[in-house]
C-alpha cells in the first residue's frame, strides 16, 4: 500500500515582485494613471445640470454625457458587450494577453497595492527579510501602515463605485454625515472588502486560479500572436546560461558558445505572477513586459544587445517572420468596425419617442346598441427626450371607422423620460368590414408647440376584432 503523505494542494508560495524601470513599466504606469483618473474623477464631472455619468437605477435610466439610455434601449447593452467581446478576441489574437497586463482591474489595483507595500516595507529583499522576522514593534508598525493604506485605497474604490449610481456630491455628504442609504453602504463595503482581498491578499492568484480568461485565451492564440518570450537559442546557445566573467568580450562569449543569459534571475524577481519566463510560455503570464524591462536593463549593463526577452511570436522565435495582417485579424477587425458602426448609427438615429399599442382584450369586442362593434385600445406614448414634449395621436387605415380618444386627449404633453397612456375607442359597422380581423394603425406625432407642426412620428399597428356572428 502506497503511503500518501503529499497533500492534494501545493502550499502557496508568496511572490515578492521587485521594482523595475523601463519602457513597459512606464507604459503600465501611464495607463494606470489615466485609468485611475477616469475612474476616480468621472463621478464629479457635470453635464447639463446633472452628473455626466449616472446610472439612475430607481429612475430606470442611464445618463452618459448627452445620452439618456432608457430600459427599451437595452439592445445597446448587447451591442456593447458584443463589441467588447470581439475587441478582446481581436487584441488577444494580435498581441496576446495585453489586456491582462495593462488594462485589467486586477492588474491595475494589484500594482498600486504593491507600490504601497514597497513604499512602506521596502524593496524585495527587505520585504523577504521582514516576513521572516519574528513579530516586533517595527514589523507590526510597518504591516499596520501597509494594511491601513490598502484599506484606505479599497474604501475609496468602493465609495467611488457607488458614486456612479447617485449624485456624487450628495452621496459624499451622506457618507460623511452617516446618512448614506443601506444599499450604498453595502455596495461600498462589499467593494472595499473585495478590493482589499483581491488586490492586496490574493494578487496573482486571481490571475492564475480564479480568472477564467486565463484558461481560454490560449484558444485565441496562433503562431503569429505577439507574446512575451525568452529567446532560448540566443540565451542558451550550446553551453547554456553562463555567469559573466570579468574582462570577457561579448564576441568571445558568443564564440565560446555561451548563452547570453547570465542567469541573474532578475526577470523572475520582477514577475508579478512569479513565473520564470525562460521556461517558455505559461498560462500564468499576463504579458505585462516587466521581465523585458528587467532583462534589457541587465543586457545594457553587460553591453550585450537588448531583446533577449521581447515581444515576439512563435513564428519569429523559430526564425520566421511575424505576420500581423492575417485573415483572422482582418476578420475580427471587420466585425469589430461593423459592430461599432451599427451601434453608433443606432445611437445617433435613435427615435426620441415611441408608441405602443395594446388591445384591451377584456372584453375583446363590445356590441353597441346601434349595432356597431367597438374595440378598445391602450396607447402609450413614450417621451425619451430630456424635455417636455407635446404629442398628438390619431388612427388610420380603417376607412369606415370612427374613433375617439378617451377624454378627448388627442393632444397631450409628456414630461421628460415619462410616458402617457390614453384609451382609444374604435367603432366600425360590421357591414363595412371584410373579415373578423382588420389591421390598421395608430400614429403618434410629436408637434412643435408654437407652430403646431409635426416634427417626429411613430406608428404602431393594431387589429380590429369582430366576432363572426356579427359579420
Amino acid at each position: 500500500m502506497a503511503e500518501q503523505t503529499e497533500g492534494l494542494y501545493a502550499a502557496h508560495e508568496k511572490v515578492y515582485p521587485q521594482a523595475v524601470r523601463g519602457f513597459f513599466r512606464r507604459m503600465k504606469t501611464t495607463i494606470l494613471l489615466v485609468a485611475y483618473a477616469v475612474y476616480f474623477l468621472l463621478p464629479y464631472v457635470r453635464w447639463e445640470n446633472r452628473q455626466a455619468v449616472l446610472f439612475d437605477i430607481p429612475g430606470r435610466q442611464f445618463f452618459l454625457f448627452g445620452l439618456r439610455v432608457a430600459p427599451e434601449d437595452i439592445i445597446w447593452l448587447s451591442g456593447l458587450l458584443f463589441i467588447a467581446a470581439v475587441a478582446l478576441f481581436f487584441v488577444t489574437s494580435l498581441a496576446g494577453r495585453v489586456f491582462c497586463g495593462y488594462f485589467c482591474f486586477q492588474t491595475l489595483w494589484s500594482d498600486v497595492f504593491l507600490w504601497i507595500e514597497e513604499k512602506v516595507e521596502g524593496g524585495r529583499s527587505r520585504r523577504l527579510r521582514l516576513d521572516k522576522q519574528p513579530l516586533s514593534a517595527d514589523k507590526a508598525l510597518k504591516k499596520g501602515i501597509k494594511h491601513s493604506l490598502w484599506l484606505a485605497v479599497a474604501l475609496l474604490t468602493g465609495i467611488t463605485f457607488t458614486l456612479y449610481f447617485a449624485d456624487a456630491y450628495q452621496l459624499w455628504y451622506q457618507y460623511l454625515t452617516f446618512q448614506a442609504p443601506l444599499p450604498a453602504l453595502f455596495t461600498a463595503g462589499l467593494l472595499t472588502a473585495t478590493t482589499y482581498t483581491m488586490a492586496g491578499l490574493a494578487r496573482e492568484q486571481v490571475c492564475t486560479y480564479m480568472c477564467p480568461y486565463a484558461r481560454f485565451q490560449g484558444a485565441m492564440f496562433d503562431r503569429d500572436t505577439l507574446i512575451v518570450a525568452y529567446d532560448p537559442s540566443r540565451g542558451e546557445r550550446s553551453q547554456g546560461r553562463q555567469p559573466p566573467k570579468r574582462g570577457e568580450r561579448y564576441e568571445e562569449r558568443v564564440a565560446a558558445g555561451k548563452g547570453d543569459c547570465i542567469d541573474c534571475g532578475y526577470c523572475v524577481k520582477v514577475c508579478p505572477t512569479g513565473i520564470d519566463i525562460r521556461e517558455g510560455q505559461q498560462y500564468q503570464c499576463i504579458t505585462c513586459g516587466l521581465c523585458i524591462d528587467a532583462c534589457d536593463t541587465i543586457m545594457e549593463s553587460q553591453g550585450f544587445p537588448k531583446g533577449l526577452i521581447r515581444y515576439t511570436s512563435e513564428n519569429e522565435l523559430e526564425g520566421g517572420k511575424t505576420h500581423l495582417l492575417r485573415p483572422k485579424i482582418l476578420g475580427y477587425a471587420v466585425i469589430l468596425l461593423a459592430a461599432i458602426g451599427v451601434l453608433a448609427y443606432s445611437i445617433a438615429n435613435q427615435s426620441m419617442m415611441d408608441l405602443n399599442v395594446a388591445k384591451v382584450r377584456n372584453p375583446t369586442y363590445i356590441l353597441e346598441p346601434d349595432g356597431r362593434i367597438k374595440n378598445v385600445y391602450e396607447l402609450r406614448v413614450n417621451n425619451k427626450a430630456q424635455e417636455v414634449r407635446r404629442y398628438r395621436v390619431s388612427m388610420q387605415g380603417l376607412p369606415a371607422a370612427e374613433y375617439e380618444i378617451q377624454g378627448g386627449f388627442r393632444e397631450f404633453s409628456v414630461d421628460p423620460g415619462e410616458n402617457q397612456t390614453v384609451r382609444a375607442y374604435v367603432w366600425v359597422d360590421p357591414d363595412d368590414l371584410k373579415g373578423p380581423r382588420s389591421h390598421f394603425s395608430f400614429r403618434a406625432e410629436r408637434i412643435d408647440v408654437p407652430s403646431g407642426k409635426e416634427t417626429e412620428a411613430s406608428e404602431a399597428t393594431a387589429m380590429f376584432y369582430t366576432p363572426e356572428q356579427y359579420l
Partner: protein
Amino acid sequence: MASNEKNQVQTTGHTWDGDLAEYNNPLPQWWVWVFYATVVFAVVYWILYPAWPMGGGYTQGVLDYSKRARLNEAMSQEALKEKYPQRFEALNKISKMSPATILGDSDLMNFVNSSGKVLFGDNCAPCHGSGGQGVIGHYPNLADSAWLYGGTPADIKQTIVQGRNGYMPAHGDKLSKQEIEAVAMYEGSLAGEEWADDPQKVAQGKEIFHGSQAACYACHGKDGKGKEALGAPNLTDAIWFYGGEKSAVIETLTYGRDGKMPSWGDRLTENQIKILTAYVHSLGGGE
C-alpha cells in the same frame, strides 16, 4: 498493513467480544467550533429577540424588536406618503375634483386607469367581470354605451354610492300565454330580432303593450325606448340584459325580473368612489 502506522485509525480503546473495537474518528476541529458558535449565537439571540413562550406571553428580548410594530410603522400614512409621493399628490388632487373634471385631466386619468383597475378588480369585477363586460342575464355590461340608469359621471357615481333596484313585474297571472307571446313578438320587432316574424302577433302585442291591462308603456315609454329615471331598459336596441332569444323574452314577461346593484357608499371612501366613477366611465360606455 501493520507497518503503515500513519494510516492506522485510532480506536477508542474499548473492546467487545475480544476483538470488536470502536474507531475513534473525532469531528474536524473547525466543525466543532462552528457548533459552539451556533450555541453562543442561539443564547445571544434569546437575550436580544423575542424567543421563549411563557404561558400567556413570551420573552420580549432586550432589543424590544417587534415585526408587527415595524409593519405598522411601514404602513403608516406618513411612511407611505414618503414612499409614494406621486400617489398622494394625485389623491389630494382627486379629493378636490368632481369625477367629470377628473375625466378631463390626462395625467390624473393615467393614475385612475391604474388604481381604478385595482379598485374595480377588488370590488366590481366579481359581478361585472374584470373588463366590465358583465354577464348576460345577471350583471350588466359596463363597456358598451347602453345605460339603464344613465351613463354620466353623476349617474355612475349615484349608482355606485346608492346602488340600484331593478324591478320588472311578472305578467304571467295577468296575461295568457298567447298574449305574452304576442307582446314578446312586438318587443322583438322593436329591436329588429329575426324571430319576430309574425305581423299579426306583432300587431296584437302592440295593442297589449299600450293597453291598460299590461301597461308596459308606463315604464318602457310609448316608443319602447325606456326611461332612465326608472331604470326601465330601452327595448328598441338589440341589447338584451336577460338574453335576446324569444324564450328569454317570454320568461321575462311571465315571471318578471329582479335586479339588484348593492350600495357601495359605506364600503368605499369618497376618493375611491371618484376613481371608480371615472374608471367605469372610461371603460368605454360613459356618456
